[in-house]
């Protein structure tokens, strides 16, 4: 394997899994050229004129879709850790004796550790998508046959659009669908909110299979997935464990330290003048993120400030803000709890979005960059504000990128993180894996202080008179090192064995992940 140094000084391969790779050139330095891909021309006369595309079972659908060795199969992750369909899909593929599949999920969850046996026996060749928990551990130990590829949600959409990833068969778990293939995620016992992550798959895959456990007579409304893109519909008893698809309730953190971070975040957004009438923000569903939203809400109420829109990861807390009129709209990318699902179904101002509307590098603009402030997490941040979200300081790949990279384009990007976890420093000299370049990361908020990127003198000026605990990022790092007992040693890795690459939003390779030496 040939490696080259990219613009961030990281060693990246020029080719993996037989595909040529372009090294990262710098933020906004690379623009792919050419045309987007087309899909095969179909004729409506090849499909039942009565609109009924139901087939008996998944095996039959896969057979009709022409499943073969070496194909690329995609799934979405809206069912999260309650997803039983993906596991059933690969059980089926295994039974059909098909091998060397490239699995292209929009994300994976611990429930998918069921698939490790298929990675071992060659049913799955490699994963292109997030590798969370056990799958990440498996890959990090060098046991996956191919090299993993991690992309952001937007990067995944772009890779499909520009043909880097050709999906042979998309399998779309659909909480409600009709026999024509129209589908949504807001109703049915497996309701998950929306199906935005399956959008590219439905539009660009050669063959698309909708699988539902709630088949309704035509028309299934609303139809976020359009039946006109669907080849086959399969009815199953259950898509998964609904209690793990959405949580009944989402909980705000109880940790006093996380609450302190959340308080600082809300205060920063206020003091920096971002919180003003008509502003917008993006909030996730981590415990700290929910808490900052509550503190911000208090401040908005006190100052009588109203937002135009909030992007989420929606939860009951975001829904309350909408209900109380503190924001005009929720633009929702994925729904985390029952209240979120209910609100999306019943409140016309709670709108579904997709990687196409929000994150796609090949789009003519993105919602994510229009947001005034986004609050995100990270596993590590270094003194140059570079951040890591996929691996831990021990070198193990344990998380996906999600929409994180795409969100960095917001007008103000805040990472709300503890300065260390147990004895693991989070603010360090150099990130283990580079996922986000420091030039896009504006503010680091920890329980020990707030570091603003020196590139953002405007922000520094706005808050320097406040009583927020502002510190240089190097000072934060020194404090953490003093507490933890010096600088951490780097993980022992095998530089000859690459296990995954990290893509930047434009499709270039920003970093590599290597095998852990035991």
């Amino acid at each position, binding site marked *: 394997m040939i490696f080259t140094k990219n613009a961030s000084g990281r060693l990246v391969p020029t080719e993996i899994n037989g595909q040529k790779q372009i090294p990262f050139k710098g933020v906004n330095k690379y623009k792919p050229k050419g045309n987007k891909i087309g899909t095969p021309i179909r004729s409506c006369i090849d499909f039942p004129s009565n609109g009924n595309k139901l087939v008996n079972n998944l095996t039959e659908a896969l057979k009709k879709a022409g499943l073969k060795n070496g194909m690329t199969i995609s799934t979405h992750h809206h069912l999260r850790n309650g997803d039983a369909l993906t596991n059933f899909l690969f059980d089926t593929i295994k039974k059909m004796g098909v091998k060397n599949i490239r699995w292209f999920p929009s994300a994976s969850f611990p429930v998918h550790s069921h698939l490790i046996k298929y990675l071992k026996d060659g049913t799955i060749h490699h994963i292109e998508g997030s590798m969370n928990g056990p799958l990440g551990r498996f890959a990090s130990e060098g046991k996956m046959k191919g090299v993993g590829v991690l992309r952001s949600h937007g990067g995944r959409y772009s890779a499909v659009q520009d043909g880097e990833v050709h999906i042979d068969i998309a399998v779309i778990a659909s909480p409600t669908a009709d026999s024509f293939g129209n589908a949504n995620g807001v109703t049915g016992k497996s309701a998950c909110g929306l199906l935005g992550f399956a959008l590219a798959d439905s539009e660009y895959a050669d063959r698309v299979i909708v699988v539902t456990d709630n088949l309704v007579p035509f028309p299934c409304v609303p139809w976020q997935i359009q039946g006109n893109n669907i080849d086959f519909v399969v009815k199953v008893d259950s898509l998964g464990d609904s209690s793990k698809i959405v949580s009944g309730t989402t909980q705000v953190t109880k940790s*006093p*330290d996380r*609450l*302190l971070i959340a308080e600082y975040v809300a205060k920063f957004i206020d003091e920096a003048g971002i919180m003003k009438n008509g502003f917008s923000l993006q909030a996730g569903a981590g415990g700290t993120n929910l808490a900052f939203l509550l503190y911000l809400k208090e401040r908005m109420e006190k100052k009588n400030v109203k937002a135009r829109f909030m992007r989420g990861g929606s939860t009951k807390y975001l829904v309350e803000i909408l209900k109380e009129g503190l924001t005009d709209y929720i633009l929702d990318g994925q729904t985390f709890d029952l209240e979120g699902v209910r609100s999306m179904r019943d409140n016309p101002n709670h709108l579904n979005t997709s990687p196409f509307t929000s994150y796609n590098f090949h789009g003519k603009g993105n919602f994510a960059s229009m947001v005034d402030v986004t609050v995100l997490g990270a596993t590590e941040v270094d003194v140059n504000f570079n951040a890591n979200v996929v691996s831990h*300081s*021990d*070198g193990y790949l344990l998380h996906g990128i999600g929409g994180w990279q795409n969100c960095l384009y917001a007008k103000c990007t805040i990472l709300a993180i503890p300065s260390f*976890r*147990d*004895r*693991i*420093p989070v603010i360090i000299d150099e990130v283990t894996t580079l996922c986000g370049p420091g030039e896009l990361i504006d503010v680091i908020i920890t*329980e*020990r202080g707030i570091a603003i990127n020196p590139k953002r003198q405007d922000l520094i000026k706005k808050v320097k008179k406040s009583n927020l605990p502002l510190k240089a990022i190097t000072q934060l790092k020194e404090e953490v090192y*003093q*507490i*933890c*007992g*010096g600088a*951490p*040693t780097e*993980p*022992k890795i095998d530089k000859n064995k690459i296990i995954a690459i990290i893509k930047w939003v434009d499709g270039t390779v920003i970093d590599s992940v290597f095998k852990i030496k035991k």
Partner: protein
Amino acid sequence: MAPIKIRSDCKFNIEIKKAGGLNITVNSKVSAMYGGSIVKQIKEMCKFFEIKNAHILLEDYGALPFVIAARFEYAVKKLNPEVQKEYLLPTIKENISNTKINRLRRSRLYLPGNQPKYFINAGLHKPDGIILDLEDSVAPLEKDAAKLLVRNALRSVNFYGSERMVRINQLPTGIEDLKFIIPHSVQVILIPKCEFAEQVKEIEDEVNRLKKSFGVKNNIFLMPIIESALGVINAYKIALASKLNCALTIGLEDYTADIGTQRTEEGKESLFARSMIVNAAKAAGIQAIDTVYSDVSNMKGLRESVLEAKALGFEGKGCIHPRQINTVHEAFAPTDEEIEKAKKIVEAFNEAEKKGLGVVSLGSKMIDPPVVKRAMRVLELVKIIE
């Protein structure tokens, strides 16, 4: 052994051998980052305690170096109670600081003395004082481990300007706790279940003896906790017992049990005792500090409880959760009305002084000296808070 499998803590198993050198096994979640440094620390400690041949097993869940040191020393002393040596890490410069007898003590946060995960970030929440507790929050079997941990924390943990307090055990055993804290930058000692002035004297004598013998120059103050009917009756004598006393406080769980009743939200049953504490403390010229509010989730109740304490004459409140601190500080802060009034009084006082008048008056009202003093205290408080 120390508590098992909890975050930020660790557990040692040491077997002394006749030969074969040191055989060190570290099972740690931070092996990749700090495995080398942990082994180095263990070797240094072995050298210090003259352990040459041993099997040492460490189960570590992200313990910081001061915790590892305390747990190792505990294991060594458990194996051989004869060992007197103390393995001390350097005192960080932030903990070489002095305190004042009349400093602000609005909030004091209790931390269980054997649970290191709470120590490291406690000061970030800015309580006026942090209490490392050796008494009721530590199980009897963990007392010895806790003393070493608290000693190490006093030297190594940055409490970010909070006053460093330790609640020792009830006398007589509490006297033994002092040698673990006096030489190690403690600032206030809380004396639980105090009933007689003599108990305070006994502690004072031991504090002075240890200070002299270890060459400790910084101030160390005492805060007796009254927790019984007898203590309440003797409150004034207790408050006067030592010039090291900086405050008198009260513990209501034990007190209400002692008088044969139960603690209520309203608190009628303790009104007498609390008023006695305030009165005794003020008569002795020290601070009066109220008990804790134990319902962590009830912020409204906490606020009301602090306002009531303030109205009774208390200047501080105990906290059992960091989230209580802000509410306590807010409730103790002078109101705008109080500040306005205080400003007028102090202005009138200054005016009277300038004119050489013996009597201060505001409008048609005469102002007595204690009122002026209180007004000055209010303005001082505003300054400190800002």
